[in-house]
């Protein structure tokens, strides 16, 4: 028998199984927490922090990323609060400039509206290229963890960080897969490969400074 844990989420008594994350427990209880880098088939990644919630234990509150935080007996979670809303708003505002070329659309747009984020506030200080990629890593991890094709990966560091395809793997796997089109929250991959069979942005483009 799996051990049952009881906790409180937004004032609601919730039962969860040991080893579940706060996000999963909330989901089962019908409480929605926004995510950008989480995918149910993938290991938690904790990159976007949009799933941040407040955890109260022993009178102290702490902000944690719910997609990777395990449930504990008696913990009290708040999925919305002034502090949390402010964090999510800022995250969206920081993400927005990298989407600026094609406009802030899709999931990020929905979140921006929900949290009242001003998507142009960091525009003037944004020095990097708007790549449409928010580096959530879903495509990369999906390609490795689910498809096991390893045709796509991250290269570079900091503002130079990019998602690229490895042509020798991509030519073998991508034409019949293309599952990363679906997982990408910004639609970058589908847009850039433009429906063509072979992905356009490869490691060679990165090395030659073309991207």
């Amino acid at each position, binding site marked *: 028998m799996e051990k049952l844990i009881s906790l409180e989420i937004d004032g609601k008594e919730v039962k969860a199984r040991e080893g579940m994350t706060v996000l999963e427990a909330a989901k089962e209880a019908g409480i929605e927490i926004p995510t950008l880098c989480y995918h149910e088939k993938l290991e938690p990644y904790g990159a976007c922090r949009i799933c941040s919630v407040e955890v109260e234990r022993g009178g102290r509150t702490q902000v944690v990323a719910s997609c990777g935080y395990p449930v504990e007996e008696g913990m009290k979670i708040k999925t919305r609060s002034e502090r949390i809303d402010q964090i999510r708003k800022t995250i969206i505002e920081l993400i927005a400039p990298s989407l600026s070329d094609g406009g802030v659309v899709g999931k990020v747009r929905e979140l921006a509206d929900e949290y009242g984020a001003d998507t142009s506030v960091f525009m003037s200080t944004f020095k990097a290229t708007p790549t449409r990629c928010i580096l959530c890593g879903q495509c*990369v991890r999906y390609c*490795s963890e689910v498809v096991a094709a*390893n*045709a*796509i*990966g*991250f*290269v*570079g*560091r900091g503002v130079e960080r990019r998602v*690229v395809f*490895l042509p*020798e*793997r991509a030519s073998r796997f991508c034409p019949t897969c293309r599952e990363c089109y679906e997982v990408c929250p910004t639609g970058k991959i589908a847009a850039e490969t433009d429906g063509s069979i072979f992905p356009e942005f490869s*490691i060679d483009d*990165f*090395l030659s*400074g073309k991207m």
Partner: protein
Amino acid sequence: MITEEQTSQAVAEILSSHKKEKKNLIPLLQEVQIRLGYLPRKAMQEIASFLEVPGVEVWGVATFYDQFRFVPLGKYHTRVCMGTACHLAGGKLILEALERELDIKVGETAEDGNFSLERVACIGCCMLAPVIVIKDKIYPKMTPFKVEETLIPYKQEPQGKLKE
């Protein structure tokens, strides 16, 4: 130019002295670069299959660090100091002048393979700021104007005119 066979041979020798352990990735990349001057594509593939890690992971690690290069250095590798003293003395202007004169960007190698450009932190002679180093020779107290003049002998060398 280094041929594919030379690459494979060098990589095979380096691999033979290492265990198949993931933690050896960075040391392997470093050794290959010391040996060949850069990391050829082929070497990356061979390291990946040796360690049994996906190629994308090897690329991810290698491109993360500034120390790794993916094109050979130019014959006259030019380093521009961007340490504090040189920066304050106008290192950025020198770099821009070099980029203009050589028609390459920092981190690149010219197509003819003669020049490559790199920015470095303090090279230890701040009294002479701003400095550049071409191959192994230090050029002190640079000005954007002096850049052109300094490069002349190197640009002429392919025609056999560099006397030193």
